[in-house]
């Protein structure tokens, strides 16, 4: 049985006072908080087991190596990958996408090829592809969305042709909250022989992901958006693709044999993990996924869905509110503006009331341009948020209206 009060006890930060007021943390789209279980596990490893992975003959090194590889298995199971060979540890979503853009790009992209992204992508799923296109003289195409924040699927189908090699799409938009029909996109892309990278940064903590069911070629996410540590992320890739892709960074760990004449590379997944990984962060990520699993993603999704409905209903009643993103399938993110008030002012004043939200361009300038606004304010929820917090947030917005009307 989902019990938000019990869950909140695992997150001591939620008890903090900000300027003497109870913290209302609604910036979960930027980063979620970590439960005690994750912090304690990592602390335990720092204090008792720290030792470099994959090379020691001694007890501690083996202990850390085991934990690192166990975490890989936890991730594999969590996203239902076929094999741990397909699970690569990176520093985060951004690095995962850059890795694919670089190495998939080296192996598969030729002059004149096309890569498709959507108008609602985070900069991390735009810029690496632009850089790749520049390197390879390939062409970047963009699928637009309508004012409700839904992708124009007709347009997407129109763009798919035999020159398209890859489609990059967010599962959930970090600005609009739109849950994109990724399965439909993947099937359509595969039908013309293109591959698909799904940016799962805003989905992994809210939606059950099964990479085999989706049949996506790449799936990426960050640990810190699913109650895990910062600095650790995942690249899932289909084995046959990863095998064809050259290594990215060279160094220790990723090699089989080093000779000055010729170096050979390690097997998957290590081929893409040069250097000492953040193995304690990896352990923390594994623990975070176990924590989520113990509560149940289905239960989390249901609770968050109810909270979102409540929040959307409340916020619609605030005078002067402008909502961005009203897709039928919407998750966890509420981007908004208040008529006549700059989002920076909204965020600054909410902060003074203990309410943490994000403001600005949200790393998605094309979305700002779509609506013709300099920025937005964004509240994003997680499983530990409550209706009382939504009330406090809405109360704050009303107060701001008042301050501005003085």
């Amino acid at each position, binding site marked *: 049985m989902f019990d938000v009060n019990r869950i909140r006890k695992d997150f001591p930060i939620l008890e903090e006072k900000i*300027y003497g007021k109870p913290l209302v943390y609604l910036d979960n789209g930027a980063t979620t908080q970590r439960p005690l279980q994750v912090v304690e596990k990592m602390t335990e490893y720092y204090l008792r087991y720290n030792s470099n992975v994959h090379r020691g003959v001694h007890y501690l090194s083996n202990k850390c190596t085991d934990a690192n590889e166990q975490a890989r298995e936890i991730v594999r199971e969590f996203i239902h990958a076929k094999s741990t060979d397909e699970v690569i540890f990176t520093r985060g979503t951004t690095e995962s996408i850059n890795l694919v853009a670089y190495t998939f790009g080296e192996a598969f992209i030729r002059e004149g090829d096309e890569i498709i992204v959507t108008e609602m992508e985070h900069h991390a799923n735009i810029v690496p592809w632009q850089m790749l296109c520049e390197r390879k003289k390939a062409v970047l195409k963009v699928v637009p969305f309508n004012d409700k924040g839904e992708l124009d699927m007709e347009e997407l189908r129109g763009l798919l042709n035999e020159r398209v090699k890859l489609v990059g799409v967010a599962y959930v938009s970090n600005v609009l909250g739109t849950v994109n029909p990724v399965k439909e996109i993947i099937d359509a892309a595969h039908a013309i022989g293109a591959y698909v990278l799904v940016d799962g940064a805003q989905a992994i903590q809210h939606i059950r992901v099964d990479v085999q069911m989706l049949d996506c070629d790449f799936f990426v996410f960050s640990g810190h958006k699913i109650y895990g540590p910062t600095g650790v992320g995942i690249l899932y890739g289909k084995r046959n693709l990863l095998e064809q892709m050259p290594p990215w960074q060279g160094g220790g760990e990723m090699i089989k044999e080093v000779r000055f004449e010729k170096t050979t590379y390690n097997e998957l997944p290590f081929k893409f993990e040069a250097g000492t990984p953040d193995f304690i962060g990896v352990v923390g990520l594994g623990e975070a996924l176990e924590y989520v699993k113990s509560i149940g993603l289905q239960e989390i999704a249901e609770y968050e869905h109810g909270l979102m409905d409540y929040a959307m209903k409340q916020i619609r009643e605030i005078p002067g509110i402008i909502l961005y993103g009203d897709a039928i399938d919407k998750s966890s993110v509420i981007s908004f503006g208040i008529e006549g008030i*700059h*989002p*920076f002012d909204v965020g600054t*004043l909410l*902060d*003074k009331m203990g309410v943490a939200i994000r403001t600005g*361009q949200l790393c998605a300038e094309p979305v700002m341009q779509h609506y013709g606004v*300099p*920025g937005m304010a964004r509240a994003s929820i997680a499983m530990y948020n409550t209706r009382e917090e939504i009330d406090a947030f809405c109360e704050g917005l009303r107060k701001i209206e008042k301050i501005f009307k003085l």
Partner: protein
Amino acid sequence: MTIEEIQNQIVDEFAMYDDWMDKYAYLIEIGNGLSAMDETHKIEENLIKGCQSRVWFHVDLRDGKLYFEADSDAIITKGIAGLLIRVFSGQTPHDIVNANLDFIDKIGLTQHLSPTRSNGLLSMVKQIKYYALAYEGK
């Protein structure tokens, strides 16, 4: 008045407000009261870019003193710009370059000084000091 005297005056004014809400309401009032910037001065080279809000600063040198104009699309930022203009407009480049800005801390706006892209205050102060440095030798 000297830069220091003006700063003290601002600190006294803000001391009248116990409540942060009143302080920000006052900042908003200052922002709203800031004289309109000459539209021809709202150009790219006068723009201080941040992730959060846009701020324009324009400077004129008259009789050895600098006179600033500013505007922002966010009203709190504009209020802060208004405070800076009050402190620095009509001062010599030399005095501006050498000024300590302790009033920001004293009136409780230090959070706006953190060096993130989100804040305008630090970049505004920097820009003012750059202008002053550029004019100091002239």
